[in-house]
């Protein structure tokens, strides 16, 4: 099994980026087609509408991608990520619901960038004072932040607490026959939108990871002191990680609010935050594909096998414990392409067989120094552009 996996991974890594994209196109098309196919055994019906189950999984995947920036890339344990999701959802509600005191009704597409900007700013506001803390302390402060956001939604009257906001704007588009693509009753359009957003965000994140920013994050994650000493402005990059992670959280909040059309204070508790954490850790923090798989499992399994909600938390709590004991790197381990032309460089350095750094290595083995690429290299001049060309 492990051997087969490594074969697949070797094959995959030997492809060029264009070839990889080409191979991914049918996968994405298949995913888009999945709710229409509604295949037996895989479907969650009749308990849960299959497109809704897939949409929820997609939103969780988007959240997990955002949270992965904070936890997986920069190594900052954020237990209050649901706060950003909430801020995104509430921004959407405030700017479009007739219940809102603002009295505006912007279209969804206008709201999305505003929601992302607002969450990004809130990420910076949270990060500026707290990111001087490390490890466990940071985790607890972010948890406090998440609770504060929820309590504010409870307490501040214009946010309407439990009554919530109705009739939130959704994206406007029609099929050729005139029926709306995005409606309360038909989730298919929302699912397609979510998948497209995931693809776009993944592309942007991939570029970010291979850039100077991504390398700085990894340096911070592996050893903050060393990173600081080697000239990485760690504080600034940690804030960036928070802001970018928050923006993705806001995007998913806006998407979710649009689909449900209703936001109140009942979904943004710490338990939900822990579920997000479970998705990231389960799939393998630091691995974009991994966290998507993790999010899919966390969202899909309870829908498919119709767990009661309490069993959902029980099972994923257990999963977190078992994973930490036996496979702390998650189902798919962490892996990174630190350099844009990294694979060519590896081939030059280690021969044709070694296409890329081995996958599934833990941070400690990498830190042991047997691989050259872990140096927190932050000098633009030494970026190996042309290294393999």
């Amino acid at each position: 099994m492990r051997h087969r996996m490594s074969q697949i991974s070797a094959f995959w890594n030997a492809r060029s980026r264009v070839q990889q994209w080409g191979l991914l196109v049918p996968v994405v098309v298949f995913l888009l087609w999945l709710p229409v196919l509604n295949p037996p055994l895989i479907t969650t019906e009749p308990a849960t509408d299959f497109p809704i189950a897939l949409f929820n999984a997609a939103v969780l995947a988007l959240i997990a991608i955002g949270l992965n920036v904070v936890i997986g890339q920069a190594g900052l344990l954020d237990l209050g990520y649901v706060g950003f999701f909430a801020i995104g959802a509430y921004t959407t509600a405030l700017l479009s619901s007739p219940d809102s005191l603002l009295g505006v009704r912007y279209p969804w597409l206008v709201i999305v960038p505003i929601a992302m900007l607002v969450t990004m700013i809130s990420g910076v506001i949270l990060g500026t004072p707290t990111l001087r803390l490390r490890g466990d302390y940071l985790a607890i402060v972010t948890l406090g932040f998440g609770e504060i956001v929820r309590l504010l939604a409870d307490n501040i009257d214009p946010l309407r607490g439990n009554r919530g906001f109705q009739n939130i704007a959704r994206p406007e588009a029609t099929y050729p026959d005139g029926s709306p693509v995005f409606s309360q009753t038909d989730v298919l359009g929302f699912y397609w939108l979510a998948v497209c957003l995931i693809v776009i965000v993944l592309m942007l994140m991939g570029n970010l990871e291979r850039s100077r920013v991504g390398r700085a994050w990894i340096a911070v994650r592996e050893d903050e002191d060393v990173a600081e000493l080697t000239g990485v402005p760690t504080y600034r990059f940690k804030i960036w990680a928070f802001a970018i992670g928050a923006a993705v959280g806001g995007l998913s909040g806006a998407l979710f609010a649009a689909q449900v059309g209703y936001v109140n204070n009942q979904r943004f508790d710490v338990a939900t935050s822990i579920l997000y954490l479970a998705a990231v850790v389960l799939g393998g923090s630091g691995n974009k594909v991994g966290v998507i798989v993790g999010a899919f499992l966390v969202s899909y399994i309870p829908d498919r096998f119709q767990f009661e909600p309490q069993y959902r938390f029980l099972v994923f709590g257990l999963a977190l414990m078992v994973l930490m004991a036996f496979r702390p790197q998650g189902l798919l381990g962490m892996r990174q392409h630190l350099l844009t032309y990294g694979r060519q460089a590896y081939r030059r350095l280690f021969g044709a067989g070694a296409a890329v750094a081995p996958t599934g290595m833990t941070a400690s083995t990498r830190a042991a120094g047997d691989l050259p690429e872990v140096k927190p290299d932050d000098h633009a001049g030494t970026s190996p552009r042309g290294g393999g060309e």
Partner: protein
Amino acid sequence: MPAGGGRPTPPQERVISPVLGLAVLDPAVLDPAVLAPLVAPSEPWINFDVGLLVDRFWANTINGLAYGSIYALVALGYTLVYGVLQLINFAHSEIFILGVFGVYLTFLALGFEPGAIPDLPLGFIIVDLILAGLVAMVVSGLAAVLLERTAYRPLRRRRAPRLAFLITAIGASFVLQQLIRIWRGSNPEGTIRLLPPTPVFEIFGAPVTNLQILIFVASLAMFVVADTFVNRTRLGRGIRAVAQDPDTATLMGVNRERVITITFLVGGLLAGVAGLFYLMTIPQGAVYNGGFLLGIKAFTAAVLGGIGNLRGALLGGLILGVAENYGQSLFGGDWRDVVAFVLLVVVLMFRPTGILGESLARSRA
């Protein structure tokens, strides 16, 4: 706590947080004549009522000291474990709530019915309370040791990174919480009040109840016992040695694993006592997720005083209990928890080592 994953449910009956229950009962807070409108002209959602704060200063202080001593007892558990293992034992709140359930089930086993106030001589009630407290200590202590054995020890064997410990702790917290939920349901248990609070005397016009005196004095006594244990006994010296330098302590013949087990045991025992006092203060508090909020606040208390420092935990607990009450008078009942969380964030921002500074090793007599 609503179930995650589902869609937002339309407005429904809301379970009032057991901690807030205390706040909501106070009629003075809810009296609209007392509240000064600040933002919205109709009903204010936040106040800035200095008058009420001054009026209720002594009542708040007394109440806060009694409630804060419960925080302090739970905070001692956080602080001991943190001192020895540098681990935020996230599941400690569930250890505590297990103690609360231990008390509650003992009450049931002793034949008390929810809702009725027992008509027994004081001596019997005291014996019953002590019995319930002992059961709670056994339950919490055992649970803490079991947690250590099953969740944390395997990780130590594998020399897992610190984040793995924290995530395991979170997972364990969820597992315990949901197990209680599956076992006892998600509604709070009925209220059993063995010792109704009756005012004994007044300080500056604020009544002091027998319950408050009992809790405050007993908590202080427990603290003194714990402090003496850590600072004066052989085992306590072992705990301090491991906290200071695990490797050297091992070389000097301290059994590290045993010290860790004892640390968890002591934390669990204290949490059990706290469970008894909590249920006496808030009889409707036996609910599966009731430990979460109190756990976070107790952790805040531990950080406030200086985590890893026993006296800091006591100080932090009392300060937090009092500050929450002041905040509640100042801003309104709904803002009680916000005050606690903001305090947590502010303390960590400006003085992460707390008021008395961290380090169990250096907190000697």
